[in-house]
C-alpha cells in the first residue's frame, strides 16, 4: 500500500507528522550522526532569544519517575549567532526548520521574529509563551489569556512566517488560552510544554536543581498532554501539534487519534537519538496493518 504521511500545519507542509521538539534536539547537528534528518517532518530548534543566554548554573537536570526535570534556563546562542552559525548547516537538510523563540517582553519576541524574517531556511516560528513576562511582575505570558493574546498578535503581525504558539500546561483551563491565541491570529498551536516540578536531595536537604524548580517532561506527563490536546482540539479550529512523553509510535498515534495533526518528540531523543525515525517507520507499520492509507484519515478519529 502506498502510504500518505503528509500533513499541513497552518500553511506549513510536512512530509510526515513527526517533529523533534525544541530544546531536545539541539540545532540538529548532534543528531545527524544518528540518522538522516531529511526523514523528519520538521525540526524545531532550541529556543532562541534576542541576546545569547548562558542559562542556569548546574545541576540542571534530575531524573524523576518516568521523566526528568530540567532547568536549563533557556541557554542559547542568540538569534543572530543561530542564523550565522547554525542555520547554514541546517539548510543542508530538506526538513522544514522551525525557530522556537522566547523573550522577557513582547518587544523581545517581536525583535527576534523580525530578525528571523530575513533569514533563509526558516519555515515557521514557534512561540514559547511559558516564559515569565518581566514587565508584568513575572507572570508567564502563557498563563493569562489576555497576555497570551497580546503576544500572539504582536508576533503574528511582525512575522512573515507561519506562527505556532506553544502553550504551557501550568494553567487552570488551557482551552481559554488556546482560544485567545487562536483569536489573536495563531496559525497553529503546539502543546504541552513542561509541567513545573521540583525534587529534593534528602541527604543534603537541598533541591536537586540549582534553580530549585524545573520543567517535567517524559512519559510521566503523557496523560496530561493527551488530555490537554483533546480539550484544545475540541475548542479551536486551527491545527494542534501534540507534545509530551512520546516514546514510540503508539504514543504518537494516541495524539493523532485525539486530533493532533502532528506530534513533537522531546525527551525520548535523549534516550535513543534515532527514536524519531523509528517512530516514522513504526507509524507506517501501524497504518499498513490497519489499512489506513492517508494519515489524515487517522487524525481525530477517537470514538466517544
Amino acid at each position: 500500500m502506498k502510504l500518505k504521511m503528509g500533513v499541513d500545519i497552518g500553511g506549513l507542509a510536512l512530509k510526515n507528522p513527526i517533529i523533534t521538539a525544541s530544546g531536545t534536539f539541539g540545532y540538529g547537528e548532534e543528531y545527524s550522526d544518528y540518522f538522516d534528518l531529511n526523514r523528519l517532518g520538521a525540526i524545531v530548534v532550541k529556543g532562541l532569544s534576542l541576546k545569547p543566554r548562558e542559562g542556569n548554573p548546574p545541576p540542571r537536570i534530575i531524573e524523576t519517575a518516568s521523566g526528568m526535570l530540567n532547568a536549563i534556563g533557556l541557554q542559547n546562542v542568540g538569534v543572530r549567532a543561530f542564523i550565522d552559525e547554525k542555520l547554514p548547516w541546517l539548510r543542508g537538510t530538506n526538513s522544514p526548520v522551525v525557530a522556537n523563540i522566547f523573550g522577557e517582553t513582547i518587544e523581545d519576541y517581536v525583535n527576534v521574529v523580525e530578525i528571523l524574517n530575513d533569514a533563509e531556511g526558516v519555515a515557521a516560528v514557534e512561540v514559547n509563551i511559558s516564559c515569565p513576562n518581566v514587565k508584568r511582575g513575572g507572570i508567564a505570558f502563557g498563563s493569562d489569556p489576555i497576555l497570551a493574546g497580546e503576544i500572539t498578535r504582536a508576533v503574528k503581525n511582525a512575522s512573515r512566517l507561519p506562527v505556532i504558539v506553544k502553550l504551557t500546561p501550568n494553567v487552570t483551563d488551557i482551552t481559554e488560552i488556546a482560544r485567545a491565541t487562536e483569536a489573536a491570529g495563531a496559525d497553529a498551536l503546539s502543546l504541552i510544554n513542561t509541567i513545573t516540578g521540583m525534587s529534593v536531595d534528602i541527604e543534603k536537604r537541598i533541591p536537586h536543581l540549582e534553580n530549585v524548580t524545573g520543567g517535567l517532561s517524559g512519559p510521566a506527563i503523557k496523560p496530561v498532554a493527551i488530555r490537554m490536546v483533546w480539550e484544545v482540539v475540541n475548542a479551536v479550529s486551527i491545527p494542534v501539534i501534540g507534545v509530551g512523553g512520546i516514546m514510540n509510535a503508539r504514543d504518537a498515534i494516541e495524539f493523532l487519534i485525539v486530533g493532533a495533526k502532528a506530534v513533537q518528540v522531546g525527551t525520548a531523543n535523549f534516550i535513543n537519538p534515532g527514536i524519531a525515525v523509528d517512530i516514522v517507520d513504526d507509524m507506517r507499520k501501524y497504518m499498513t496493518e490497519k489499512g489506513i492509507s492517508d494519515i489524515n484519515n487517522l487524525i481525530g478519529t477517537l470514538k466517544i
Partner: protein
Amino acid sequence: MKSYISATVFSQRETVGGHFLIVLKVPSSFKESLPGQFVMVRVKSCNHPFLSRPFSIYSVYSHGKNTFLEILYKVVGKGTEVFSRLREGDILNILGPLGKGFDLPSECDKIVLIAGGVGIAPLSFLAEYCEKDSNHAEIICYMGAGNLEALVGMDRINGICSVVKISTDDGSWGHPGSVTELFGRDMELYLGNDSRIYSCGPNPMLRSLHQLLRDQHVACQVSLEERMACGIGACLGCVVKTKSDGLVRVCKEGPVFDINSIEFSDHNG
C-alpha cells in the same frame, strides 16, 4: 552512522564490596574507543531508570570475532543498583563511544595517574593504552579510597604501572588520608615537561588537586562527572563552569578537561 546499540551482558561480578565489573558484547565499532571516552547505558526492557547513565570505558578488547567492553562501576543509586542485578544474557542499550578522551602523551617520561575510588576506570584504560603504545613512559599510579574494601581495580593497574601508591581515608591500607595529600608529597618529582598527570575521582578530590597544582607548570587533565540526559550534546544538562568559555558541556567538550580550565564549584561535592 552511529546508532543506539543493543549490547548483551557477557558476564558480571562484584570485584570489591559494592563495585561491579560488567563485560558487554558490543559491535566492533567500539574498538575505536579512546581512553577517557564513555558510554551511555540503559536496561533495554525496563524503563527504570528512565535516563541512560554515563560510564567511562574501563577496557575494550577483541576475542575472536567478538568485541568486549568493560565497565567498572560503583553502586550509588537506583540505576547502578538495577545494573548490579544484571546477569549473563541480559540486554542493555548503549550509545558510544562518546566524548573527548584524554590527550595522549606523544612524548613524555612519566605518566602519573591519580584516581579516587572508581575514578580508576578511565585511568586504567589509559594506562593499558599507553602500555601497548610504542611510547615507553613510566606509568605511576596514586590510588585513594575510603577504606581497604573500596580499593577497586587494583589488580589490573598493579600489573601495568611501575609504581602504585595507595591511600585510604581510614588508614586501613597505605597512607592514611587523601590521595591528593599522598600525591602532594611526591609532586615535585613530576613538575616539568617530561610528566603528564591524569586524574579522575569525586569532585572534592579534583578540587583539592586543583588547589595543589594551581601555581605549578604541569599538564594535568581530569575526567569530570555530571548528571547527563543525552550524552551527545543536545540537552545542555551536563554543563560545567569553565574559566574562559563559560558553561560548557561535559559530554561533548569533555568529559576530559585541563584541570586549570575548570571553575570548581561545590554543588556536587
